Every structure is written in structure tokens, then in C-alpha cells.
């Protein structure tokens, strides 16, 4: 187990390093950043001075090593546009993204599990068919278009909910979030629902598949034979067993949520790190792009590692030592 974790950590470091190399070189292939940084009226001498000051006259490998040296101490360069540390910019916006991803996962569970359970318990009913058909639609609908339609219906036509921004945040137990006030929830409900859409479909399908399989198992029959109420059989015996795959998949999907938040944040003007990425791509703010990608890759590598370790803890049949992941 320890050997596995060490080996995986080394592999992960390799992946992050390779990614940083690819992104760093790619960024430098697309043109000279110096013209974005200097005054448009500056003459040749000033431009050359700026190039020297930024270290852009050095060979690429030397620049990369310099970048790595900075990265090792937690410095990923300064944003061209904002003039402050790129890492700080991203970390400032990270709580908003995390909050959105968390709220959407919560919605996926709260909406998806009851619907999936119902569809699994009464597969022949009309309601179950409607639920399953809707879940197919949920897979096919382009997220961003649904987001626009949500704004149109709930914000413009009905005027029930605000369409943009994060709303007021309040501090609770040292965490700043808009989830602690009702007003904050009014702001997050549309973006979170939009981001949750795909996951709701996924959870419905997983729960339904698990339910229709588990319902014929002996332990369910035995629980019934013991005379337990239907509520207890479904709520305790059934739920405990079908939740394992649902929880695992949702854990894996958390990273996806953060990546897809890019789209939702742009539509709903949510001040998270995804929106920062899009505006950085549009303004060619390279240090921020590089920092965002490195942080995200790092996050993914960690999530994958944690999930693999959790698998082996939850399921004794999985032997990590033999797996060459």
C-alpha cells in the first residue's frame, strides 16, 4: 500500500511536470508576449530592455527551468493583465467555483436519487418512463443552451431569480460562502441546477440500475420476510447498497464539475476561476492560463489518487499493488 502510494505520487509528479512542459512550450510557440507588456509607443531599445528584464532573451529551456524554480516555491508568474500573482488570482476565485461545484453535486443527489429510486421500484409506470426519457434528454442537451433558457424563463420572463453574479457572501466557521444565507441560495440555484443537469441524469441512471438489480436480492426478500416496513426496507437496506457506486461516481465527477464550471460561470457571470480562464484566453494572459492548467491538472491527479486509494479501502478485492495504474 505504502509502496503503491509512493509510486503513484512519483507518477503523478511526472504527469504534472509533463503537462507543465507541454503548456509552457505551447504558450511560447504562439507569439511574443513582450508586445502585450510594453507601452505601444516604446522604441526598439525599450522593447529590448523589457525583453531582457523579463528573461525572454534566454533559451526556452532556461526560461522553463526558471519557471520551475518559481513553481517549486509556489510562484507561477504574474498576470499580464492584473499585474498580481497568477496563483493568487486563481486561489481568490477558487472558493466560488468550489461552492458552485458542491451545490450542484448536492442538487444531483437530492434530485437524482429519489427519481432514480422511483424509476427502479416501479419500472413499468408511466412516471418511470417519463423520468428515463428526460434523463436521455439530460445527456443530449448542450449545457450552455439550457443555461440560457433557464435565464430566459426564470429570470427574464418570470423574474423569480437573479440571473447573474454570486450575491452576498457571509462568513460561517471561517468560510466565506453564499450558501449560508437564503439570499445567497437565490443566486446559486440557477447556476448550480445548470451545472447539475448532466449529473442528475447520471445519478438517475445509476440509482435505477442499482435498484432494479438489488430489489431481487435475497437480503431484500429476507428483510421483507422479517416483516419490516417497506419504508425501512427501501430506506435502509436498499439504499445502503445502491449508494456505493453512486458515491464513487460522484466523487470522480467532482473534478469534472470544476472543469465544466467554466461554461456555467460564463453564462451566469459567476466570479469563479473558470471565468478567469476564459477571459485570460481571450486576453492572452499566459501566466494565468498556465497557472490555471497546472492547478487543475494537480487537482485531477490528486482526486484520481484519492479515489484509487478509497477503492482499495472500500473494496478489499481491489489490490493496489498489482494494478499498474
Amino acid at each position, binding site marked *: 500500500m505504502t509502496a503503491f502510494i509512493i509510486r503513484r505520487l512519483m507518477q503523478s509528479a511526472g*504527469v504534472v511536470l509533463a503537462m507543465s512542459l507541454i*503548456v509552457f512550450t*505551447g*504558450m511560447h*510557440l*504562439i507569439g511574443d508576449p513582450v508586445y502585450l507588456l510594453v507601452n505601444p509607443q516604446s522604441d526598439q531599445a525599450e522593447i529590448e530592455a523589457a525583453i531582457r528584464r523579463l528573461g525572454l532573451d534566454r533559451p526556452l529551456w532556461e526560461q522553463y527551468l526558471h519557471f520551475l524554480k518559481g513553481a517549486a516555491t509556489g510562484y507561477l508568474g504574474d498576470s499580464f493583465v492584473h499585474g498580481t500573482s497568477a496563483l493568487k488570482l486563481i486561489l481568490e476565485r477558487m472558493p466560488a467555483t468550489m461552492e458552485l461545484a458542491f451545490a450542484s453535486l448536492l442538487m444531483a443527489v437530492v434530485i437524482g436519487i429519489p427519481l432514480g429510486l422511483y424509476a427502479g421500484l416501479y419500472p413499468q409506470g408511466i412516471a418511470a418512463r417519463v423520468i428515463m426519457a428526460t434523463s*436521455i*434528454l439530460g*445527456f*443530449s*442537451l*448542450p*449545457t*450552455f*443552451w439550457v443555461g*440560457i*433558457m433557464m*435565464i*430566459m424563463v426564470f*429570470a*427574464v*420572463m418570470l423574474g423569480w431569480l437573479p*440571473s447573474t453574479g454570486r450575491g452576498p457572501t457571509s462568513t460561517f466557521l471561517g468560510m466565506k460562502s453564499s450558501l449560508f444565507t437564503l439570499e445567497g441560495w437565490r443566486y446559486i440555484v440557477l447556476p448550480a441546477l445548470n451545472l447539475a443537469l448532466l449529473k442528475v441524469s447520471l445519478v438517475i441512471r445509476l440509482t435505477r440500475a442499482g435498484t432494479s438489480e438489488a430489489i431481487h436480492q435475497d437480503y431484500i426478500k429476507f428483510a421483507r420476510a422479517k416483516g419490516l416496513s417497506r419504508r425501512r426496507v427501501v430506506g435502509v437496506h436498499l439504499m445502503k447498497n445502491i449508494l456505493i457506486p453512486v458515491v464513487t461516481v460522484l466523487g470522480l465527477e467532482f*473534478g*469534472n464539475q470544476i*472543469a*465544466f464550471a*467554466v*461554461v456555467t460561470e*460564463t*453564462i451566469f457571470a459567476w466570479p469563479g476561476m473558470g471565468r478567469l*480562464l*476564459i477571459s485570460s*484566453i*481571450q486576453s492572452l494572459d499566459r501566466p494565468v*492560463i498556465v497557472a490555471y*492548467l497546472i492547478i*487543475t*491538472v494537480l487537482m*485531477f491527479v490528486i482526486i*484520481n489518487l484519492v479515489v484509487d486509494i478509497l477503492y482499495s479501502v472500500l473494496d478489499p478485492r481491489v489490490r493496489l499493488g498489482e494494478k499498474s*495504474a
Partner: protein
Amino acid sequence: MKLAEPSVAAAETEAAGGPLQPSVETPFQRFVADFRDSRIAVGALAVLLVTVVLAIAAPWLVPQNPYDLAQVDILDARLPPGTPSSTGTFTHWLGTDGAGRDLLSGILYGLRISLFVGVASGLIAMAVGSALGLAATYAGGRVETLVMRVVDLQLSFPAILVALMLIAVLGKGVDKIVIALVTVQWAYYARTVRGSALVESRKEYVAAARCLGLSNARIVFRHILPNCLPPIIVVATVQTAHAIALEATLSFLGVGLPQTEPSLGVLIANGFEYMLSGKHWISFFPGLALLVTIVSINLVGDHLRDVLNPRLSR
């Protein structure tokens, strides 16, 4: 186990040599009959064909070339659906956008671009991915480990993140977005092809071909590849729908196609700014066209999966 024969190869053989026994159902006929079982899938296929024909024939169907400035009048901007145009020659059935372009014409032109990008990137990714998957299986050893590692690594990141990363490096444009989509998608094909090629290579007909002394290349391309086609076709339909959706998403975010190549995603993005003032049709109708295209491809793909799956008894 009965394997549904690859339709394309079978159809070609039939066309070339003619059926020896006309009474026997060919694999292709069986495939067609199986496919017709689902009315939903047949309907979806019909819708899809109509969409493709509309997209291809757009220049001859639409009342206005929306990108010919001589035909567009800025005074017609943001007209609601059903308003007659200021020239009085035709009606804007779906309204006009912020620059006075007829929306129906814009959608059909946009459909052309969206479908082209989706199909082109799907086909290239299929060729690249299948070739690498086959090569991995064929070469084995280090090459196989290397290719499959890269596949695993890439599939552990969400497609949109990889695409954004590439777009950040490459920039905007049709060619660049196709490159990004191919890079995102090839891994799905490689994994699928390797999986089924591994299964196929252990079958008796491959052993028989070996005994006949056929070259390895001939065995891989003429014997194994045709038998891997059913799963490839299924992945291709699903991935083409994904590619269209992903391109639309990137274009909506403003990092995909430029304004000069207005795909459906660009049209939706253009309409988004008018959404808050209640002019919903500028975003709504392009989105509807996108939705119909993606859903019909997915429904066809879903049914193809059932028809081509040898494990389902038929």
C-alpha cells in the same frame, strides 16, 4: 455467438460479386431489418437526414445570404419571428439577429459549419484513433503500453478541459478547432479498437488466416479491422454528436470559431446579449437546431449500439 457483420464491407462484397443465393438474407439486410425495429430510431434518422440535406442545400434554400452585406439591412435588426422584411420580398419566419440578418438563413448556414466541423473531426479522429489502436494491438509490447498509457491519461481529464488547453495554445479558427476536437477524441477510438481487436485476434478465423501464410498487415487490415467496425461505428456516432456539442460550447465561450465562421454556437453566443432584454428568439432557434441535431444523432447511435451488439440475442 452470432456476430452482426460489418455492414459496409458486406454491402460492397454483395455489390461486387452479386449474391450467390438470393433467398438468403445478407448481413446488411439483417442489419437494416434490425434497425427498422425501433420507430424512434428510424424517425431520428429521418430527422437527421433532413438536417443534413438542409445544411448542404442551404445556399439554394434560404431567402437571403446572411453574410452578403448587400442583402442585409441593419434596419431589420432584432425583428421578432414572422415579420416581413423591409424589402418586402420574403418573411423573417424566425426573426432577425442583432445585425439584421435573417435568422432562418443564418441557422442553415450555421448548421453547415457545425456539421462540417463535427463530421470532419469525427472522421479524422476515427482514422487516427483506429490506426493507433490497431498498431498498438499489432505491435504489442512497449508500443502498446505507451499508446494505452497516453489514452488512459487523456481520458482521465474531461474533454472540455483538454480542448480549452489546446485552444489556449492554438487560437481560433476552423482548422484549429478540428485539431483540438481530434486530439480530444482519438483516445476513445483507440481504446475501443484495441479492445475489440484483442478479442478478434484470438478467434479462429485469424488463426486460419495465419495458417494460410497471410502477411500480418493483411490480417490486421482485411480480417481484424472489418470485424472491429461495429463498435467503431457506434463510437463514431456518439463522438460526432459530442464533437458538435463541444464545438458549440467552445464557440459560445468565445474561444472556438471566429465571427467569420458563424456556427450554431457563435449564433447562440451572439443572441445571448439580447436575452436579458427579452429578445429570446436570437438564441432560442439556433439552440433548437443544435438540440435537434444532437438528439437525433444520439438516438440513432443508441439504437445502433443495440443492433450491432452481438451479445443481445436477436
